[in-house]
Structures are given as structure tokens and as C-alpha cells.
């Protein structure tokens, strides 16, 4: 109870059927303790992880991957502190889409958003390396250029799944909120939720009168 808890809104982006929700389900079920937190299928999930002295609570928002709904994504990534951009290593088209998402996030999302590029379904490659259609180097290059975290994962076997979330958790400014605030101030104050909560802070201080 003494651990400070940081809530992180994380949004999942990527083409339909690349395994966005599988990744999250794997991440959540890795946890031994049952997940008592409220969920909406695998579309909305929360999960706590301890990183060093901190508890990070991921609030995971799934987006619909159908191309038809692409224009609705901003409603979901609004105010998100982190994003997973997922593609399928066996589907080049999904990587092209991932590029688009990265670009759009940089243009439209929270300035300080932490983006992890995730190539999923590497388990297929273990059986047959020929299935690979998106080269690791190509993805790494994109990640370098755009300042992204990069992982190749398998939701099926669990490879690298927790690393993705730990990686994000470590990059989230926990104590150094000043910096985040200075840069992201605009975004934060524009956010109604945060903004109003701030004004309600007096009461929150009161009701949180713990130690």
C-alpha cells in the first residue's frame, strides 16, 4: 500500500486480426493473482505490474482494427500515455498499416506518448522461417527513426510479451512528472477528465487522507 501507483492509459492499434487482444490477454493472464478488475471482454482491461518500487496500472484500450473504423481511432488514443502498434510478421500489409499508425500518433496523439512497435506471431516463424514477410531489420529501422520501443512477440507462446509492458512501464516518467508536465502540459489540461479532476483536487486531498 505504500507503493505509489501510476495509471497508464495504453491504446492498442493495428490491423484487424494481427493479435492485438491476444497479446493483452496473454499479458493479463500471466499474472498469477486473479484479475479482479473490471473488464469489457478483451477490449478494455486493466493490469497492475510492479516495476522497481512502483506499481504501474495499465488501463488497456483496444481499438477496432477494421480499416473502415480507422478514422475513429483518435477517440481512443486521446490522452493515452502509451500505445502498442501491432503488426503481423507474416503480413506485410499489416506493417504498412503500422507505419501509418506511428505517423498518425506522432502527429495527433499526446506529445509524450510512448509507442511500442510490436511484431506479433513469431511462433509461426519457428516452424517455417519462410513465412516471415516483415524483416526484423526493417522494423528496427522504423523504430530507430521514430524513437519507438520494438519487440517481436508471440502471444501464442508468450515470447517477449511481458517485456513489452515492462519496457513501457520503465519509460513512463514516474517521479519525473515535472518534465512530462512541462512538455505535455497542453495536452493534459485539454483533457477534460484530468482537468476537472484537478479542480476537484481539494476534495481528493481530503478523501485521500491516508498516508
Amino acid at each position: 500500500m505504500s507503493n505509489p501507483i501510476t495509471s497508464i492509459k495504453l491504446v492498442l492499434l493495428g490491423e484487424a486480426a494481427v493479435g492485438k487482444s491476444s497479446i493483452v490477454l496473454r499479458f493479463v493472464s500471466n499474472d498469477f493473482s486473479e484479475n479482479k478488475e473490471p473488464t469489457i471482454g478483451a477490449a478494455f482491461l486493466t493490469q497492475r505490474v510492479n516495476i522497481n518500487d512502483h506499481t504501474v496500472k495499465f488501463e488497456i484500450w483496444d481499438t477496432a482494427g477494421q480499416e473502415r473504423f480507422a478514422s475513429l481511432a483518435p477517440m481512443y488514443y486521446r490522452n493515452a500515455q502509451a500505445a502498442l502498434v501491432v503488426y503481423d510478421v507474416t503480413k506485410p500489409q499489416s506493417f504498412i498499416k503500422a507505419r501509418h499508425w506511428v505517423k498518425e500518433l506522432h502527429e495527433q496523439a499526446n506529445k509524450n506518448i510512448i509507442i511500442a512497435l510490436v511484431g506479433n506471431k513469431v511462433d509461426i516463424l519457428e516452424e517455417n522461417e519462410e513465412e516471415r514477410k516483415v524483416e526484423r531489420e526493417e522494423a528496427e529501422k522504423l523504430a530507430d527513426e521514430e524513437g519507438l520501443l520494438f519487440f517481436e512477440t508471440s502471444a501464442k507462446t508468450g515470447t517477449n510479451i511481458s517485456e513489452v509492458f515492462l519496457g513501457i512501464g520503465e519509460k513512463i516518467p514516474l517521479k519525473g512528472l515535472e518534465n512530462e508536465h512541462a512538455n505535455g502540459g497542453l495536452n493534459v489540461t485539454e483533457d477534460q477528465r484530468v482537468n476537472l479532476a484537478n479542480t476537484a483536487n481539494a476534495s481528493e486531498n481530503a478523501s485521500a487522507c491516508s498516508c
Partner: protein
Amino acid sequence: MRQFYTTPVSNSKFDNSLSIKESYKPRQSGLETLGEKPSQEEEEKDIVETNEPTGNLTSEEIEESMNGITELPVELSHLIDVFIIDLKQPKYLRPLTIIQLSYLFQGFYTKFDKFCFQYLSNNGTTNQMTITPSATSFFTARESLSTGLSGIFARSRSSSTASGTSITRAPRRSSSLFSLESNSTGNITQMLSPEEIKIHLKTNELNNLKIEKYMILCESYIFNKLLEVGISVSSPIKQNPSSSSIDTLSSSPSVEKTQEKLNHSNQEIFNVSSLFRNTPEFGDFDKLLTEKLRCLSKLSLDGKINLDDFLGVPDSVDFSNESKNKDVRESLTKFTYYSTSPYEKVQILLNIHDSMTYYKGMSNDEFLSMLIYYIIKFRPRKLFLNAEFIKLFRYKKKLIQKELYALTNLEAALLFIEGLTLADFSDELQDELTTHEKKILESKVSDVITLPGSNGKNNLPTAVIDSPTPINRQNGNDSIGSRTNSNEGFRNTFDGSLRNIISKIRLYTPPTVNNLKPLPLPRSTSQLSMDYDGGSPLRSLASPNNGSSGEEDNTHAGTLTPGRSVQRSIPEDWKKYRSLKFEDLTITQLKEVFEVYQKMIE
């Protein structure tokens, strides 16, 4: 009973836009520079978690105390009545837009939340062995001062005195500017045994849960009350024909009655659209959206579009399950017609998501496309208004996580439908359309109608002001008793009386033309009082913000000049009214006080 929320009801000419305004802006920017904001941020994050039970609290305990709460205590429901009466006062220059109304409600929720805390901590003193009753009430009394701009100063003062006077105070996170000081002198943590801390935490946790419950009841009470008494006011909100048969607020609020009504609410149709009357754009938007919905629905019925394919519904979804379809259909109807409070509606929305769940790991590829499918199929009316209603009137602090997600899904679905145009359909289909259908599908609804404040969709316009501010009439009188420090007392009397005077002055100033403009009033009281601190660093923080926006009002008030140093050529007996209530002052006495005030600002 403290009625901190209402303006003087007796004066029907009272114009709220001229009374003291609460302003959050200066507070934010003022604190930011001191590095206060980040810590608030942290706190905020912590606080989100406090609702969740830790290992200390068993679920039985929670259940036990929660089951007891089925209605609001009279003290709390009374606040709501006062708020509604206040809303019904014909005191606004022009009818309130829905966004202004939402602002009022959110402000009220915040205060109600705060008051719940006070209410609970006053009741719960027996459980908190470590805090003497007097200390607790001492703090909660201070707490009530902390509103708006003056809140910062009241708060910081309270903490700095607190560190000296009350050592038994329980450790609490303080957002005070002097929190460091108070911690170092108090050194309180060691005085509590682990047991005691545990009990204390437990009580806090329970209280938080209770507050949450109270807030839910509050929303339900407010909107059922509005349903009961109607929302007609002489000016702000127009008569609502369907629900305003009882036009006057019954003298004594009966909670049972409202609760009962809630149970039989199947007959009552809460017409959300009546709330949106003064902002017709919303109604128009909804109308066009419904039209589009009907058109799409017909196209799908006629087999002209295959919704499954059109929406890219994943193969895993099977719409042939009739009982599920029925569930969703009923929930949608309930959502739009047979539910009243925003909380209730959000819960139904969550139920809809539950009904749609075929398997545990369902992703939003499925949820969103299904939701759109069902909406087009069942085309519930006023869906858009209901979504907006939740967004505007659900307590913002609680519209988070799962609730916010479900609402976002609904909004996304509506945005999708609203944005469908001919270009989204195949050429073959376009040829089959009637001219009427073509017209409906010609353009996006959002291109035709611009919603107020829609450029930041979710943002409340910061300029919305007309919020009734707690006038804090007891401000001066209430707290003087507890002051030992004469300087404090002085400052407070001064604050109190000056504030009253100013509101008096403002009462007679001509109404400002643009009522959307912030009228930062309490600034001057706080600021002048800060001057007595002898060059407190706060002053420089507080003034730029206030000064700039306040100039115009000063000219109105005639004599007000903020930020000028105060001369102390004041009659010896200037303190003599400190124990009087404002209401008790005669005109002559008021005049005297006013003269003192004039001397001060000269």
C-alpha cells in the same frame, strides 16, 4: 445546516453573474510555478486507486456497510434540493446552454463529493481514535473554506497554523504550499501505532466507498427530482411539457418518494432532449442522425446493404442468437427511454457490452462492429442526446476506465454512422437509392451542424462561467472562533466583510453584456489579504493572472484597485463587527465597513 451552495434566494433580482465567481484558472497557474502541480498529479493518480479495496478490508465488511446505504442522508439530499432550487432561480441573464448547465452540475458534484467527506468524517470520529473530535471538525471546517481561488489561501493558512496547534493530526497528504513545514514540525507518523494506522486507513477506505455510493445516489436523486419537479424555470430552462406537471418544488424533500419513483420509472419517460432545449444544435444533430439511421436500417432490411460485410463484422460473431439480440434491443430501449440518471445509463451501456460478449477474450474488432450493427438494426432514437447527456452530466471524476471506454465505443459508433456518406457505398447501391435516401446520405451530419464546443469535442469551453459560487457567507464568522492568532482573525474578518461588500457593490453594477466572460471577483479579497503577509511570494503568483482579466470589472466597481499596497490608516474600532453576521448589519454599519474598506485600498 450549511447551505454553502446557494445565492440569496430572497432577492429575485439577484444576478448570479455578478456575484463572486469561482475561478480555477488562477489556482492552477499559480501553483504550477511552485512545482505544486506535479505533486497534485501524483496524488491524483494515487487517489484513483483508493477506491479499490486493499487486503485490509474484507469484502464482507464492505458489503455490510454498503448495504446499509440505500438512500442519501437528509443532510446530503438537502444539499441537492438547495441546488435544484438554486437552478430554478431566475437569476441568469440568458438561458443556460447545455454546456453551462453541465458546468454547474459538475461543480455541484465536486462540492457534493467534498461535503460527503465532511459528513462522513464528522460522523466517524468515534472510530478514529487518534484524532480528537475537535481536531477533526477543525479541519473539516477549514476544508469548507477551500473553494476556488480563496481556497488556496485558506488552505495554506490552515496548514501552517495546523502544524503549530494540532500535533495529533493524522498524517495526510497536503497540497498546501506549506506542507513541508507542517510535516517537519508535526512529525506525526511516529505517534500512531501500526494498529491505529490500519484502523485509520480502513475507515478512510470505507468512507471512500461510501462517498462513491453517495455520489451515485446523488446523481439518481438529482435527476429523479428534476423529473418530479420539472425543469421549468422562469428563464433558464424552458418548460418541458412531458414532465413538468408538478411545477413547484415540494417543501420537504422525501427521499423515499424519489426512490419509489425510481422503481416505477418504467412508466416515466425521462426526456433527455428537454435538457438540451436551449442548445438546439444538439437536438438537430440528433434528428439528422436518427434520420440517417432509419435510412440505413431500411437499406439493410431491404437487403440492399449487407451490414455484416459492410461493417466488417468478424466471422466469430453470430447474430442468429435471438435471445442475445433481444437483450441488446431491450437494453437499448431502456438506455434511451427508461433510465434517468447518467450513472444508470452508463450501467446499461455496460450491460449492453456484456450482452454482446460471446466469449471472454472478445476484442473491439467485434464489439464496435456489433454495436454499430445493433444500433442500425434497432435504431433507438435520441441515442446521440443520451450519449451527450452522460458525457455532460455524469460526475467527471467517476466517468473513467470501463465506463469511459463503453461511452467512447458508443460515441465512436455514432460518429461512424453520422459520418457515412454516399461515397461509402458501392456504385451499384448508389444507383438504387431514391432521391430522398440520396439526400439523407449526401453529407456528414457534422458537416451540416456544428455543435457548440465541438472543436475539442470532449472539452468544456473554458470560458463558460455562469457558475453559482458558494458565497461562503459563514466564511468570516465561522472560523474566527477557532483562531488564536489575532492576525489570522483580522485577515479573516477582513476577507469576509470585504467579500460581502464587494458582492454588494457588484449587485448594483450594470450587467456585463457578455456573460461568457469570466468575472474574477474573489481575487481582490484574497489578494489584499495576502498583502498583509508582507510580501509573500504568493502575491506575485496570484496577481498577474487576476489582474489582467479583472481590469474591466474594477472600473465597474469603481474603487477597486488590486495589488496596491494597503495603508493602515484605519479607525481603531474597525474590528468591532467581527462577531456579527452580515445579515445583521445595518446600513450605517455597512457604510462604516465600506469606509474602512475604502481606506484600505486607497
